[in-house]
């Protein structure tokens, strides 16, 4: 394996204590981003950041974002630092839920020219459905969506809120990667849940079914959907 180049890469933080940022930088052999250059840092450590701040960072060209609540994960991103054709986000379930990642990622994809403007709504919807599934059914472990009983909708959202308050489930990591190959972008969503069996049938039982449309939407609007790791990884392909 090729040695990991360090030193020339820089790290910055949003909503992160300086001591934590300095510790991660030292551990990984990265420089701390300063005012001496206009180029974006290579790695962003995010704590209590806003969607607007994260959007601005991604649009600026930052390609790798790691949650400050789990800085040990930063070790794993060293090999991908500095790759111009990759965006990688590794965030806790709670932060991913609050920040609503799909529109942020899609703005970054469009800014980089990886998706055309007229494809953005369908890319955003597919990524949103994949991320929602990874959060709700993957990391939060809620197996089924609302049933036909109208009251089940209230119970479902109460369950989502309750599990987001559980630090173990809410702390599970959601990874979102986008790779551009010159003709298409492949978006991959990984969760740490129990997985699921994906069959060829992705249609809900009837148009009036209250849930179960996510996979159908992804298959209709993307240029390819595949699953891996027992359903804990979904890959979506979009031609530009």
């Amino acid at each position, binding site marked *: 394996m090729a040695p990991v180049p360090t030193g020339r890469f820089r790290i910055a933080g949003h909503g992160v204590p300086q001591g934590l940022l300095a510790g991660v930088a030292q551990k990984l052999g990265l420089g701390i981003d300063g005012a001496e250059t206009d180029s974006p840092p290579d790695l962003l450590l995010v704590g209590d950041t806003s969607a607007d701040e994260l959007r601005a960072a991604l649009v600026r060209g930052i390609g790798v974002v790691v949650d400050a609540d789990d800085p040990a994960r930063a070790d794993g991103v060293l090999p991908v630092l500095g790759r111009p054709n990759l965006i990688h986000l590794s965030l806790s379930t709670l932060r991913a839920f609050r920040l*609503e990642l799909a*529109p942020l990622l899609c703005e970054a994809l469009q800014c980089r020219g990886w998706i055309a403007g007229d494809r953005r*709504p*369908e890319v*955003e*919807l597919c990524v*949103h*459905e994949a991320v*929602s599934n990874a959060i*709700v059914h993957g990391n939060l472990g809620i197996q089924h*969506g*609302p049933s036909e009983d*109208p009251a089940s*909708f*209230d119970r479902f*959202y109460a369950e*989502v809120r309750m599990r987001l308050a559980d630090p173990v489930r809410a702390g599970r990591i959601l990874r979102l990667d986008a790779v551009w190959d010159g003709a298409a972008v492949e978006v991959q969503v990984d969760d740490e849940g129990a997985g699921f069996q994906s069959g060829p049938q992705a249609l809900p039982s009837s*148009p*009036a*079914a*209250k*849930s179960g*449309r*996510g996979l*159908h*939407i992804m298959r*209709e*609007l993307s240029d390819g959907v595949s699953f891996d790791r027992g359903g804990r990884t979904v890959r979506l392909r979009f031609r530009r």
Partner: protein
Amino acid sequence: MDYSVQTTDNGIRVTLTGRMTLVDHDKFRAVVDAIEKMQGTACEFNLAALEFVDSSGLGMFLIARDVAMPKNVEIQLKGAQESVRRILQIAKFHTLFTVLD
């Protein structure tokens, strides 16, 4: 998502704006309450300013339909932008609702 409810000659008009997703369940519960209490025969959803709806949002429209049907209230989905109209088509909502330009 934001919403407003207005009384019309034959029912109510619900105007939805912004993004309608999983997190809007509580707000949409208030819309469903308005349908439960309404007089008349038509509930028009003005979707012209709705920018995004996901599968959870589609489920919320179906909850509204469950409440409206026993009251003989027709639900109209009106004026959706192209991206929202596309998802309504994929979900075959024209078989369940009156979808208007």
